[in-house]
């Protein structure tokens, strides 16, 4: 097996252009090593991206830019995220364990694309786009279009995710991320819900996003639920209605963690709770 550790993005892209699928991209390695150990993955080469400078959290040109190699731990501790993009910090905090968070990366979590990818719901709720770069050029893909199935994405073998970009939130906007889980750490979510609510000065909902994880083949938006919220003032019956629509949007499976029936019910409960939290945060200015 060969090993490459490029120091720049250009070097990494040149290697990917040359080796394509034969070079397994390694970032935090926490998912990739599991694949090698338990799915018999035996690539020709390992492309260690650890030295490529893609670790940052910054607001620029009206957007929040998150480098793909930012670790989950860095996201968890970021004062900017905790202040204005709380759902991202909350999802990061609930990820794995402290040791895992010091290794795992945002790009790795999204690229691995499990239906329960922890960071996907808050990114979806914040209208994030993934920037994919190759030696041929670059493209921005809305995250909703990025996932195509369990473990499958639109990323081509010669592409690297370099960053995620999302519009800076402002005004009376609140976000929340809640996950339903048996244990508080080191457990895959039964249900993950991220909400974003933007209110106008009259307290009516201007913008609404509800994103669900672990209850469909990919992380999804609950668009009908979002539509039901728009232009209305926040109140409990409305939240309940949206929660029911979110439940209808989910297509969970039954597995060791929970039955589909239970997951659907938990979508309803957690959507209602996340909406309440997002609304409260929106009223107090995020």
């Amino acid at each position, binding site marked *: 097996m060969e090993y490459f550790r490029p120091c720049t993005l250009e070097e990494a892209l040149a290697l990917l252009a040359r080796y394509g699928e034969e070079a397994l991209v*390694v970032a935090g390695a*926490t998912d990739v090593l599991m694949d090698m150990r338990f799915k018999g993955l035996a690539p020709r080469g390992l492309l*260690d991206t650890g030295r490529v400078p893609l670790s940052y959290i910054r607001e620029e040109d009206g957007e929040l830019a998150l480098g793909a190699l930012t670790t989950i731990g860095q996201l968890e501790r970021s004062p900017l995220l905790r202040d204005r993009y709380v759902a991202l910090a909350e999802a990061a905090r609930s990820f794995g*364990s402290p040791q*895992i968070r*010091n290794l795992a990366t945002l790009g790795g979590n999204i690229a691995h694309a499990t239906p329960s990818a922890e960071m996907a719901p808050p990114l979806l709720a914040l209208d994030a786009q993934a920037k994919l770069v190759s030696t041929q050029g670059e493209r921005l893909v809305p995250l909703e279009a990025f996932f195509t199935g369990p473990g499958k994405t639109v990323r081509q073998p010669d592409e690297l995710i370099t960053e995620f970009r999302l519009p800076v939130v402002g005004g009376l906007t609140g976000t929340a991320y809640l996950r339903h889980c048996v244990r508080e750490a*080191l457990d895959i979510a039964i249900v993950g819900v991220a909400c974003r609510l933007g209110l106008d000065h009259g307290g009516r909902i201007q913008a609404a996003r509800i994103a669900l994880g672990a209850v469909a083949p990919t992380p999804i938006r609950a668009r009908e639920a979002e539509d039901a919220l728009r232009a209305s003032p926040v109140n409990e019956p409305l939240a309940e209605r949206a929660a029911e629509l979110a439940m209808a949007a989910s297509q969970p499976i039954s597995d060791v963690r929970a039955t589909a029936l239970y997951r659907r019910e938990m979508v309803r409960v957690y959507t209602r709770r996340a909406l309440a939290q997002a609304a409260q945060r929106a009223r107090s200015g995020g």
Partner: protein
Amino acid sequence: MKYSLRLWVNGEEREVQVEPQLTLVALLRDHLGLTGTKWGCGTGDCGACTVLLDGKPVNSCMVLALSAEGREVVTIEGLSRNGQLHNVQEAFIQHGAVQCGYCAPAAILVAKALLEEHPAPSEAEVRWALAGVLCRCTGYSKIIDAILAASRSG
């Protein structure tokens, strides 16, 4: 195919030749003879393999040895100085926080890293920091007592 690896382990510069698939835990245990770091699950769930990489706790079973090039690794063996135990180690002994000892190196390293960042943690913060270390013997209470005591004495 082997690649040369140069890294710092417990303050000492080490140079080895390793295969790409070699994990940091295997490097430490099998190549460097530092068996204080344990192998528990191989899936990043139990934390028994925890070491400090550039000061931060990580599961060494989840780190490619070659990724540690030029970086600093601290294992449990690196905590005592000239035969003098670290105050976290002393606290573990005094508070009966070690039974079989398998999780102890991990718990101690996590505690050391925590106290360096948060010298006066709350019990909740100690528990949270330990979320990635599984202990089957102690029920955690004496481990937590030891860490809180070390924070008060350190």
